[in-house]
Every structure is written in structure tokens, then in C-alpha cells.
């Protein structure tokens, strides 16, 4: 029996068989198969109305560009459609839990976006007279005050543009301090095996050689190994705390004491500060320098890979060597110490052209002010609570890498529990995509076999956590029940199936070329 309205339109679905037709165009419902901008026939077109110049640039003879540039243009409706269609092929925090361990994918408040776009912040030039940007300098100064207070550190270098840039800033500060103190012969940096890749890369960048520190069976830095490797040749240690296994370094105070006794500095990778903000101050642990990823702990959006911001808090011993420029407060108001001479004469140099990531500073400050001292402490507590809840609710079906004791803001599992199923960590992650979740960080840290590092953050509701846990429990049951096909071919329901990374690397095709890509109409 079928229902119809008075003009013959069916008002209930008809009975059909289960046959799934591949579509005729490649489109799938709301998902469009979108061509590249170079294939949209936009040669000779523009989406911006600009008046013609009144006269030719006859003063630039011999310098003018006469060759075709090769840039298509799109009218505004075409451009909007192109980018909206592309956007729909991305996972995002705004869609679902995004449990990338070590990345702190938390909600990005929209108030922060609104504030960063105020003309008084977005439409000011970095080299305007300082008398015309007092509010901007005041904002940097207030943000610096919050960062120093939350970390218990006396100084902060604001200019680094991301975490790795902050690490570089920290190590260059340390190197400058050593050189100023006649300790320039120290050329070794000790880094735990579990460290982020940026740590050894940064140390090498600064001209230091990297020596790894072993890890104990409970996932912490081995004090015995640290002690054996410290010496007059060591410039610094780089330790992440909480570490990349999601664990607090219980012996952190002793680590700092041993490091200082050996004449070295303690650089802390602050990527995981979200776990302890408002509850533990790194300054109380003996840290000399630590970068803070404003795009992690303080919620500035990740934007598909940046921009970030990586201010570095510094101890009193290191502060004088911080890079220029920095904000100073004189009787007449704020000034910028820009160097190389003057108040910034002791700076080791400059990290980039201007004063750091102002747009990120405004967002981070709006976030901090919104939460306040009490809210930020609750942030750390809820982040840790959520991670431990996941660990507890999945601990019986997956294998926690460190089952004893609590974790901090992220829960680490190994692939022990997948043994004999024929399913790998990669397969499991890809099957999560089919269930609507972004995979966790996989195969990192390197110290755990088949690592799965889950960081839920504090901005997930219990309901969303339960939905995630339910999905992972169902997948774990399917893996153990031998449903290998569900995993090996996954994802089946994403905008794309698994991509051939080997092909991409063997024959790198890094740009569109007209000869290799004829217009779609010709295909």
C-alpha cells in the first residue's frame, strides 16, 4: 500500500531491494566530486571587481612580467561553492570527538574569533608608532602575565610562532646562557626515547647532538640512565611533562635537581600543559624553559595545520637572553624593545620579522579570561577525568600500555589485544573513520608497539564520550570475532578509500600541470 498526496507525490518510502547503485557522476548525496580550481574553466575570469589603472607602468621597462602566470579565477558564487564542497570532506572538532593524542583538539570558542577580528587588533600594522598601538601592547602584556602566573615562571618570550619554533627559541636561549657563562663547550642534549620528533630535530638544528634517555617499565624517564648520561658535556635535557605516554613524571623534581647539579638546563616540552593547567606550576618543578602551544591548551583553532603560537616561559637565569622584540612598560606607557641595541641588547637574536602571533594572542587571552583561574583548573581536571574514564571503560577490551595507576589527559593503548586477529592498529584506526570518529594518534609514542594514544580533552560531554566508547567497544568485539574484512578495506564510508602513499612518494606530483591534466571535458 502506498501513500500519495493529492497531486500524486509519494509521501512514504517505497519498498526496494538492497541493491546499491554506484552513482553515475561520482557524486554521493551531499558529497560532491569537486574538480581542482584549474579544471573549472576559470582562465580569463575574475571574482574581484578592480578598476583598470589609468596608465601603463612605463617607468618599469624591462622589469615587467610578460609571460602568462597560469592562475585561474572564479566568480564569487563559484568560489564559495568550491570551498564549501571541499570543506565537507574534512573531519573537524565541530563534527565529533577528535581524539588525537598530544594534539589537544578541544572546542574553539567563537567569541575568540570575534575578538581577534576587531579592527583595533586585526587592522593594525606591526610597525605603526607604538603610541598608536598601546592597547595591543597591553594585551600582549596581560597575556604574558597570565602565562607567567599559570606556570610560576618569571619571564616569557612571546614571539615564537608554534611549538617547534618555541623549542628552538628555548634551546637558543639556553645556548646563549651557556656561552655567556663560559659553558659553550656543552653540546649534548638528552631526550627521552618517547619524545616528540620536534625535540631531537630542534636540538640538531641548534647544533647539538642528541643522546636518548631510556624509559622505565612504568613509562617514565629512567633516573639511573639520566644520571649516567649527565655530565659536563650536557647543555640541556628536553622532557615532556606530562609525557607522551600520558603519564606524569613522578620523579620530575629529582630530574630537575640532577640536571641542575650537572650544570645543564631543564627544557620542558609543554605540549601537554592542558593536563595540569591551574593545578601544577612548572616553575615549582624546576623547569628552566617551556613552550606553551596556545593552539592546544588555550584553544586557538588548529586551522588544518596552523597557525599556532608557542610562547616560551623562562627562568630568571635565562630571561636576559630571550629573543627580541619584547614589550616593556615605562612611565609613559608601553614600548617595544626591538634590538639589536638598547634594552634588547642581551637578546640572542630574533625568531621572526615581527612581534609574534598577535591574532592567536587575542584568542588565547579571550579564552583565559572566559575560564579564569577557577575555570582553567576545572579544564585540567575534566581533561584528566575524561581520559581516565576512557581508559577505565576500554581497559577490559583493549590493552592499556600502562594499566597501573591513573593516566593524565590522554590514555595510551598498545596493540597486544589485537594479536591473532589479523587486524593492525592502522586497520582499527581506519575502521573508526567509518563509525564517524577521527582516529586517535597511531604508532606514537615510538616506545609502545602499535600505539593508540587517545586524548578526548575536557570539551566532550559524557554522552559523546559514551558514544565514542560504545563505537570502540563494538569495533573491538568485531575484530575479536574475526570480521577482518570490516577493517582491512576500511574506510568504506568516508569521502575516499585508503590512499596510496607509496605511489605519491615514488612519483611526486606536487602541483597541477596543464599537460598532465587535460580539462575534464576532454577526458
Amino acid at each position: 500500500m502506498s501513500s500519495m498526496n493529492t497531486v500524486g507525490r509519494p509521501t512514504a518510502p517505497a519498498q526496494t531491494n538492497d541493491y546499491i547503485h554506484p552513482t553515475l557522476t561520482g557524486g554521493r548525496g551531499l558529497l560532491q566530486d569537486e574538480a581542482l580550481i584549474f579544471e573549472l574553466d576559470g582562465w580569463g575570469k575574475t571574482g574581484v571587481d578592480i578598476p583598470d589603472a589609468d596608465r601603463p607602468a612605463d617607468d618599469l621597462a624591462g622589469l615587467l612580467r610578460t609571460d602568462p602566470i597560469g592562475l585561474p579565477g572564479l566568480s564569487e558564487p563559484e568560489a564559495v561553492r568550491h570551498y564549501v564542497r571541499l570543506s565537507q570532506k574534512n573531519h573537524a572538532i565541530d563534527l565529533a570527538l577528535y581524539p588525537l593524542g598530544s594534539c589537544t583538539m578541544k572546542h574553539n570558542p567563537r567569541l575568540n574569533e570575534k575578538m581577534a577580528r576587531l579592527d583595533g587588533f586585526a587592522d593594525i600594522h606591526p610597525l605603526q608608532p607604538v603610541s598608536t598601538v598601546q592597547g595591543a601592547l597591553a594585551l600582549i602584556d596581560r597575556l604574558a602575565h597570565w602565562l607567567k602566573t599559570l606556570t610560576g615562571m618569571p619571564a616569557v618570550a612571546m614571539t615564537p610562532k608554534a611549538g617547534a619554533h618555541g623549542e628552538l627559541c628555548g634551546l637558543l636561549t639556553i645556548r646563549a646562557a651557556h656561552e655567556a657563562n663560559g659553558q659553550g663547550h656543552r653540546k649534548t642534549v638528552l631526550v627521552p626515547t618517547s619524545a616528540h620528533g620536534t625535540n631531537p630535530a630542534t636540538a640538531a638544528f641548534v647544533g647539538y647532538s642528541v643522546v636518548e634517555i631510556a624509559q622505565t617499565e612504568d613509562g617514565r624517564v629512567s633516573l639511573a640512565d639520566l644520571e649516567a648520561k649527565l655530565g659536563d658535556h650536557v647543555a640541556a635535557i628536553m622532557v615532556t611533562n606530562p609525557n607522551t605516554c600520558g603519564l606524569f613524571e613522578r620523579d620530575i623534581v629529582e630530574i630537575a635537581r640532577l640536571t641542575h647539579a650537572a650544570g645543564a638546563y631543564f627544557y620542558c616540552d609543554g605540549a601537554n600543559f592542558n593536563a595540569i593547567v591551574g593545578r601544577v606550576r612548572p616553575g615549582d618543578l624546576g623547569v628552566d624553559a617551556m613552550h606553551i602551544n596556545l593552539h592546544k591548551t588555550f584553544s586557538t583553532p588548529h586551522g588544518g595545520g596552523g597557525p599556532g603560537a608557542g610562547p616560551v616561559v623562562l627562568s630568571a637565569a635565562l630571561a636576559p637572553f630571550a629573543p627580541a622584540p619584547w614589550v616593556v612598560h615605562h612611565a609613559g606607557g608601553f614600548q617595544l624593545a626591538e634590538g639589536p641595541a638598547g634594552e634588547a641588547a642581551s637578546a640572542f637574536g630574533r625568531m621572526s620579522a615581527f612581534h609574534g602571533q598577535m591574532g592567536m594572542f587575542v584568542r588565547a587571552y579571550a579564552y583565559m579570561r572566559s575560564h579564569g583561574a577557577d575555570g582553567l583548573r576545572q579544564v585540567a581536571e575534566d581533561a584528566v577525568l575524561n581520559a581516565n574514564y576512557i581508559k577505565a571503560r576500554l581497559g577490559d577490551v583493549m590493552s592499556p600500555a600502562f594499566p597501573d595507576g591513573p593516566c593524565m589527559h590522554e590514555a595510551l593503548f598498545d596493540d597486544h589485544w589485537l594479536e591473532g586477529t589479523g587486524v593492525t592498529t592502522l586497520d582499527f584506526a581506519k575502521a573508526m573513520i567509518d563509525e564517524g570518529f577521527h582516529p586517535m594518534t597511531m604508532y606514537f609514542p615510538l616506545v609502545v608497539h602499535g600505539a593508540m594514544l587517545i586524548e578526548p580533552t575536557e570539551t566532550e560531554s559524557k554522552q559523546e564520550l559514551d558514544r565514542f566508547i560504545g563505537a570502540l567497544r563494538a569495533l573491538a568485539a568485531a575484530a575479536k570475532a574475526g570480521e577482518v574484512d570490516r577493517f582491512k578495506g576500511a574506510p568504506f564510508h568516508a569521502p575516499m578509500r585508503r590512499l596510496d602513499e607509496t605511489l605519491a612518494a615514488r612519483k611526486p606530483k606536487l602541483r597541477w600541470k596543464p599537460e598532465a591534466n587535460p580539462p575534464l571535458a576532454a577526458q
Partner: protein
Amino acid sequence: MRYLPLTPDDRVQMLGDIGVDSIDALFVDVPASARREGLVDLPHFAGELEVERELAALAATNVAAGSVPFFCGAGAYRHHVPASVDHLIQRSEFLTSYTPYQPEIAQGTLQVLFEFQTQVAALMGMEVANASLYDGSTACAEAVMMTKRVTRRNRAVLSGGVHPHYVRTTQTLAHAEGMEVVALAAAVDAEDAVIAAIDAGTACVVVQTPNVFGTATDVTKIAEAAHAAGALLIVVTTEAVSYGLLKSPGEMGADIAVAEGQSIGNALNFGGPYVGLFACREKLIRQAPGRLCGETVDADGRRGFVLTLSTREQHIRRDKATSNICTNSGLCALAFSIHMSLLGEVGLRKLAALNHQQARALKTALEGVKGVEVLTPRFFNEFAVKLAKPAAQVVEALAAKGVLGGVPYSRLDPGAGLDDILLVAATETVTAEDIAAFKTALTEVMA
């Protein structure tokens, strides 16, 4: 608190499921000496209205560029950005996604990066480009360090026309890698002077066009001299709109081209975040820094995109990586790419021509002011003037009259003895009334 979804009941229930009786039990690994019982000494949480009030008050004390006649450049330029650009970059799926490590659910970001790389390579006239670096200055430093890996030589020569902050950033970072960075004395029109400084140990020569004084130069001869000595040529540009009018770095023989991309798609933002553009010859790509997006196919044979050649990068190669960069300027690159897609070649050429025309009009106006001498022989949208008074004082006096009248060169390079040089820029945002107001104010200040 509006950003925290857990209720007190949720927390109690979850602690029970974990099997502990309090949140403190989850922080037991923190040494007792470092556990803080009370709150840090900062204000408590605040509602949206309260936060908006504080920030709006701060913002209101700054002089926004759009509110006055405005002529500042020197590495950051005020251009009009179409409204759709800012709307599109705030799409949740672009704004709140991570680096595209899971390509099956990140094709939006990846296809944008592939398009961005193609646009940047075309603009610079180069073979390949990467997926962005932090900004122009760090891109310059990364390029210099890359030439050490390629040539196994240790010396970099920077012309006296390179932006002093780029020089200082490059000295800081390349020196850290053990390179000798030779910066020639500042000069308005002296890019060719680098030729005499090239020797057998030179890894690269760095020139800027238009340079920090605005001078546009055909650097073909410098490329020939560098190549004859086995060195690489790096061409720096701080004003990306100039690619629409002037010969590209690739056409002039650059091996690596770097630029500040802020001009296209991105606001002034008091200096950041910006977007570093980086392109090079294809044969050098395996020594390049930063992320690269490449084309491939999926299991069904459909075209798709992935991050590729990642064996250069820190998360794989660790201390052997070509750079330590991880997070770059993804969203700023997206803004650049959208604005570029709207402009197209037609729009970019018109925009560049209009900028040049405005700067010529400004030159004509300022030439008539007593105590002002235009120094830059050939320029795009910015030039240097010599003043009969210290430029820093003049700029302050102009600001007091409600005109943001350029950047004193001494602000960039206080020790160069060029205190009488003022850098002025005019983009399409400048009106005839703005130029007239600038001329009037400058005439008063110079009197």
C-alpha cells in the same frame, strides 16, 4: 562554565566508574611539593559580555589602519580582502581540523594545499612549492639553511636590500646551524653588489626584489654570477602582489624563491599570523623544509591527495630532519588560496597595476614637499624618501596629526645611520584624499 559540558553528577559517576573517590586521586603522581591546593592568583571566570567589554576597550585604544590615511609597508601591507574569504576560512571543517594526517577524512584541506602549492609555484615562476612556512622571514632563514644541505658549503651572502628583520632572523637561525651569514651594508639600489662578495665557499646569495627600500631589480645577472660560482640564488619578496606586475623570481633564474604571503588574503594582525611562501627547483625538493602535498589515488582508483615525502620531516627523521617545523600556517594559506582564486590572473594583474599607480601618485605628491627627496629609482608600491629631519620624529608628528605616514628605516635597523630615511607604501586601499591629507600633514611637519 560555558565551554565545559560535564555536570557535577557526571563527574561523580565517572569517578565511580574509574574506581576512585576524588579527582585528587588522579593527580597522585604529582610530587607533593608541587601540588597546588588553591587557585592561582588570577581573576575568576567571566561571561562573554564581560570579556567582550575588556577586549573592545583595549582594541579601541589602537589606531586602526582603516580609520586614517595609512602608508605603512616594510614587510606588511594593507590590502582589501573580499568578504567571502573570511567567511569561508571560518567554515568549521577548515577552522577546527588538524593537520591532515588521515587523508580519507581530510581531502578538503589536502586539495586546498595542492591548489595552494600550484598557485604559489605559478606566481613565483618556480617548479614546485611547499604547503607554507610560518612567515616570510622564517622562510628566508629556512631557504638559506637548505642551501647548506644542497651545496655542502657554509657561507651565505645577503644583499643590503634584504629587510633587516629577515637578515636578523636568518643570522639567528642559520648561525645556529653553523653557517656564516654575511650581510652587506644597506643600500637603496645595490643588489648587484652581492656579485663581488661571492666566493668558492658561498652556498647562496640572497637578494630581495622589490627590496626593503622598494627598489625593483632584474636579478638575472646575479643568478648567472651565483651559478657560475656553484652557489644558489634565493630571491626574497615581502609584497606578494608585486608578482602580478614584475618579472617572477623563476624567470630571473632563482633556485629558491621565498615570500611573505600576508598581502593576499590576510589582515595586518599586528605582525602575525602570516604565511611564508616557499618554492624551489624540482630537483631540490627532497632538501626542502615543511610539508608537501602530493597527488595519488585511493583503493578505488579515484584521484586524491596526501602529505608526501615526509621522510624529510621531524616526525619521521627526528634529528636528521630537514627542518623542525610541524604546525605551519594552514589557515592563512587557505585564505591566501581563496583570495588568489577569486583574483585569478586577470584580477591579480589589475590589482598590481593599481597598486603601482597609487604609489606613483604618492611619489608625485611627496616630491613637491620641501625637505623630502624620493630615493627609490624603480618601485612597485613602496619607496624610500630622504627627509631633512629624523624619520622617527616625523612619523610621530604625523601620527599626532592623524596620519600613519610610513615606517622609519631606523625602526628596522637602528645602527645603520639611516635615520633620515622613511619608507612609504600605497596600496589600492589608499584614496586620493588620503594622499592629499598625507601631503598636507607632511608639509606642516617638515616646515
